[in-house]
């Protein structure tokens, strides 16, 4: 046993990490649906889910069970093989892209049979990180397009066609908008892209790529939202025109797979936005402000206490037991960070990355609660006539500035 572990340490670490990441991503996905419904509901002066469990917190569990037990019909005349392949493809590709994201610069403080354990499935030193991500995104179209085609039904076909056209159009802008960042970092490596934003540690938030690359960020974010088929670019599933678009004929867990794929790509895009433009795991404060390292605790402890207080006032008995328990756990975590400086130091990087990802996920939901859907011709005109030229201008300006600095030596 020991010899097996020591000779295959790398393999064991990877498999365990994959299982862990799958569990975390799927759980986060489930609670993302809860978060989205809650936030959109409050924006529309409603309560959102609050029947199943305290504050509706068990709603995702109920939804998941419902997906598993629903009847799963296959439409007559569907191309069976492609019909079953499409959701698998969508989900597999979405989950694969998460595997390429590094969640922290340092390996865990302890080793497993001499092998370092990094946060994230592949080590942060993959040289083609961002390219590999784009490769997976490029393949992602097939899930939606094939689902629409294989259902043998007119609304899904229209949805599939729309999504292929949309993804081809916006992929160009998506790729071009990142070139500016790549030029500034001089690498495809996600870790080096983040480190390039820390050249001046004292600048903190003002050293991030988003300031010189504000144009690139605008193009990237818009194109990325379009790539994930989210509001206001959700034409492939426009429910007022196409029933449910490409997944009209999918029921039960096959539908859930498309759903999970969509939310997973939202997480990936949020990761990419944070890494490329918002400094990834870098703190927004100057490096000398070490007191900001207590920020995780400062946020977690009051939040935990608030959850405890709220729990005591909750109307159902179940909530009055569960919520204070959850609150104690959150506050306890905050207290651990205060008491153990080593742990606190280690979680700084993941804490900032996760906070930024959370902010972007909120923006996604916010947009869904705010913006109306594009019309199809508006969508095409916006992609080809505004985003693509803007991102090309961004590349040209960035290259000239970099060239000028190299020639006349600003630094």
């Amino acid at each position, binding site marked *: 046993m020991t010899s097996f572990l020591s000779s295959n340490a790398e393999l064991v670490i990877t498999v365990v990490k994959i299982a862990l990441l799958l569990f975390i991503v799927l759980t986060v996905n489930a609670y993302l649906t809860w978060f989205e419904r809650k936030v959109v509901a409050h924006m529309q002066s409603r309560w959102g889910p609050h029947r199943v469990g305290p504050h509706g917190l068990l709603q995702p569990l109920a939804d998941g069970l419902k997906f598993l037990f629903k009847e799963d019909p296959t439409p007559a005349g569907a*191309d069976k*093989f*492609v019909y079953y392949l499409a959701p698998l493809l969508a989900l597999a590709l979405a989950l694969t892209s998460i595997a390429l994201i590094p969640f922290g610069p340092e390996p865990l403080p302890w080793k497993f049979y001499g092998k370092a354990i990094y946060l994230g499935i592949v080590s942060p030193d993959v*040289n*083609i990180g961002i*390219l*590999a991500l*784009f*490769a997976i*995104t*490029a*393949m992602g*179209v*097939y899930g939606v*397009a*094939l689902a*629409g*085609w294989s259902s043998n039904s007119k609304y899904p*076909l229209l949805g*599939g*066609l729309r999504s*292929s*056209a949309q*993804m*081809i159009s916006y*992929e160009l802008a998506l*790729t071009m908008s990142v070139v500016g960042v790549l030029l500034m970092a001089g690498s*495809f490596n996600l870790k080096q892209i983040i480190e390039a934003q820390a050249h001046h540690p004292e600048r903190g938030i003002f050293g991030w790529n988003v300031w010189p690359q504000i144009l690139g960020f605008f193009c990237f974010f818009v194109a990325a939202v379009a790539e994930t088929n989210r509001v206001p670019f959700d034409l492939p599933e426009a429910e007022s025109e196409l029933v449910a678009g490409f997944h009209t004929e999918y029921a039960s867990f096959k539908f859930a797979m498309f759903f999970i794929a969509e939310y997973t790509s939202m997480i990936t895009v949020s990761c990419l936005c944070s890494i490329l433009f918002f400094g990834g795991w870098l703190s927004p404060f100057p490096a000398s402000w070490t007191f900001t390292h207590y920020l995780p605790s400062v946020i977690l402890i009051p939040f935990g206490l608030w959850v405890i207080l709220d729990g005591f006032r909750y109307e159902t008995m179940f909530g009055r037991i569960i919520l204070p328990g959850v609150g104690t756990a959150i506050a306890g975590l905050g207290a651990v960070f205060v008491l153990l400086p080593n742990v606190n130091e280690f979680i700084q990087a993941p804490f900032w990355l996760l906070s930024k990802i959370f902010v972007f996920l909120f923006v996604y939901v916010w947009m869904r609660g705010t913006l109306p859907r594009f019309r199809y011709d508006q969508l095409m005109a916006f992609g080809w006539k505004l985003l693509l030229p803007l991102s090309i201008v961004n590349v040209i300006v960035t290259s000239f500035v970099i060239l000028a600095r190299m020639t006349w030596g600003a630094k």
Partner: protein
Amino acid sequence: MTAPLVVFFVLAALAVIGAVSLILQKHPIHSALSLIVVMVALAGLYLLLGAEFVAAVQIIVYGGAIMVLFVFVIMLLNAGVEEHTNLSKMAGAPGLLLVVALAGFVAATIAKSAESVHAAPQTGELASTLGISNMIFKDFVYPFELTSFLILVAVLGATVLAQREKS
């Protein structure tokens, strides 16, 4: 067998199966899907050779952009199962002969140069992003620019053809 060799044989088998299935499938979408399998398997082979950049570009350009366009057109035209005319059925016999001839030629070439194939070095530095950019933008910059010009001409031609009805 070492791990890279196993991966090589899996990918090679995938590529060959995909290519055969591309020809044998009746429906255009299935053929297109088989072609995607070939493209991705080839990308895997490039990765195995240490050509990371080429592998990623292979998937982005061929697996992604070009094949999506194929699938899109097939879906848009709603192309069904291919119809066979007498002539296309007759084309099978000479085609088979050609296949045998080509296979023999390739096998002979490989057999002749077996040693140099074995000795082929890992691509290494030359295939890195830096090496490729140096080649494209320094050593071969004129052929590269000429190719881009050719593509531009093709794009202009397509635009003119698409707008023909207006004039």
